[in-house]
């Protein structure tokens, strides 16, 4: 009996290691085509990193592995938590030894379609480039990527997983590609708003519909940055959150006067659960976000020309918040395929 138990435990451990512990689950690469999108997330993958199940599963395993942080206390998932839409519930993230980062960790849903630079300031050209930056960042995982590869290379089972996914031993390139592959599978497209887009007009309540009309209407012009299907226009704008002496954002990269306080326009998928908001996590609630836009930002002269006081009344503010909550995709937030 004992022998049988040990064998079962061993088998369970082995299955966990290979990332295929629950065969009842659909493959990570079984990806929906969100309404209004011309191609699946898999089709957005670069030719040298075509999306496969082995690659995505390897990436998921790495995403949840403390091995990739210097003191083996932090994972990618420490700051990108599924139940929070793969965002961080803290204003700024905590890395190894409790070090605090500078910005709020962005949500990760639907990044497959982003083409204009990732991170709040757009410093990474694509998912493959983005993937290893947090590993090396002093305030995050603080592990030289070569050291990460060395750890993976001497690990009991990673070399086999890399061989299956990329046909060779762990390497920097394979590490970045695997992590990118997993992130590419993080697709959210089953909110009530998505159902509404597909023609189910009953999917939104009356106040959510009013909020939607406001959001995509002339009075607020929210749609200028948050487009109808992707909910972002992939641009970089100063949305009025900048305060004098604060984080200059994209200007760090471009040195342009006009990029002072400009940050990436985030998509709003699951925004109800990705609080706190803005690049600095300075707004705790959706109500506070709507209030800031209603005021026209915080008043710094660098604020983009599109940000103007909206002078929303209480009902309009409530309707907008209701619409934003309709972007919640419960199935995504609880999808067991994304769990370790």
């Amino acid at each position, binding site marked *: 009996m004992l022998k049988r138990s040990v064998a079962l435990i061993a088998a369970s451990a082995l299955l966990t290691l290979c990332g295929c512990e629950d065969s009842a689950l659909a493959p990570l690469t079984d990806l929906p085509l969100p309404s209004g999108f*011309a191609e699946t997330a898999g089709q957005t993958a670069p030719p040298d990193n075509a999306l496969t199940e082995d690659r995505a599963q390897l990436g998921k395993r790495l995403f949840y592995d403390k091995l990739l942080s210097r003191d083996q206390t932090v994972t990618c998932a420490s700051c990108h938590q599924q139940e929070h839409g793969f965002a961080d519930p803290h204003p700024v993230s905590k890395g190894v030894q409790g070090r605090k980062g500078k910005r709020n960790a962005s949500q990760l849903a639907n990044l497959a379609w982003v083409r204009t630079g990732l991170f709040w300031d757009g410093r990474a050209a694509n998912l493959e480039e983005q993937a290893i930056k947090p590993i090396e960042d002093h305030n995050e995982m603080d592990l030289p990527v070569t050291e990460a590869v060395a750890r993976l290379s001497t690990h009991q089972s990673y070399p086999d997983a890399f061989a299956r996914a990329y046909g060779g031993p762990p390497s920097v390139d394979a590490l970045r590609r695997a992590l990118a592959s997993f992130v590419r599978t993080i697709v959210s497209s089953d909110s009530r708003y998505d159902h509404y887009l597909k023609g189910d007009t009953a999917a939104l309540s009356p106040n959510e519909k009013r909020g939607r009309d406001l959001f995509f209407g002339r009075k607020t*012009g929210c749609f200028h940055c948050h487009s109808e299907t*992707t909910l*972002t226009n992939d641009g970089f704008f100063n949305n009025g959150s900048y305060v004098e002496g604060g984080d200059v954002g994209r200007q760090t990269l471009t040195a342009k*006067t006009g990029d002072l306080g400009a940050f990436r326009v985030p998509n709003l998928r699951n925004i109800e659960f990705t609080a706190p908001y803005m690049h600095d996590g300075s707004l705790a609630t959706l109500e506070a976000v709507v209030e800031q836009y209603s005021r026209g930002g915080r008043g710094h002269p660098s604020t983009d020309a599109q940000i103007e006081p909206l002078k929303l009344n209480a009902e309009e503010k409530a309707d907008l918040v209701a619409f934003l909550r309709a972007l919640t995709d419960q199935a995504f937030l609880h999808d067991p395929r994304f769990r370790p």
Partner: protein
Amino acid sequence: MKGSGGGGGGARAGGTAGTNAAGGGVPATLGADGFPVACLESPTLPAAAQGAVTIDLAPQLDGKPFVMGEENVLSSGGTLMPTNLRFYLSGFEFKGGSKKVPATLVDSAGKPLRYGVQFVDVSTPSSLKFALRVAPGSYDEVSLILGLTAGCNETESLLRSPLDEASQLKWPHTLGFLFLRFEGKYSATTDKNLPTKIHMGSGSGDDGFAPKISVVGPVEVGSQIAQVSLVFSVNEMLKGAAMETDLSKFSLPLSAGPIGEEILAGERLRQHTRDVKIFSRK
């Protein structure tokens, strides 16, 4: 931006004439704007289009390079700091005498661009230089559409870059796109007519089509790559967007609320594109 069923959207029935962009002798259904109704994702190169042309676009303000994200000094006083200037170009034609020849936008490998559209983001210098293929010959005029053909503006298909939301030109609720988008900020200027935002699309006023522009100047297309340098005059764009226009018939299929100043500025520009000289030979 699609019309709401008025003049902009109502005149799309068109007829059948000429050949389509594929150049294979297949009759193409033409819209009222004179361009194919279909928006082909993968246009093919007409066999006759053997001549190569490179176009350099130079945005200028008061005759000086227009620098995005920086203070550009206005001759009238004050400065303009542009934060966004992007537009589509399509429908290129070369004219020589009475002959008008369609030109095909191509990438660096000579492959026709998706949908036959050049997306220009002035913040991205590489988008200011692009290539065409056209039949060899002597031409004295280049014409282009500042925006999209009706076929591409109104297609119901799901489209890919550059006809997508990441272009920042996709319009919600409707099928279409803005043709041009400008945003900027002025300081220390006394000119109250300068628009801070211009969103030009096709509303229901007037004909609703993207403006077609002719640029006069000789182009010899032969065995060598012909170079054509064009100036994009920001002054003329701002001027057109501030010109007096009867907008009483202009409407948009959007939800309640006043039509934004940026849309009105865009419609003024659309209707007056022929009265200003946005593009000229360098």
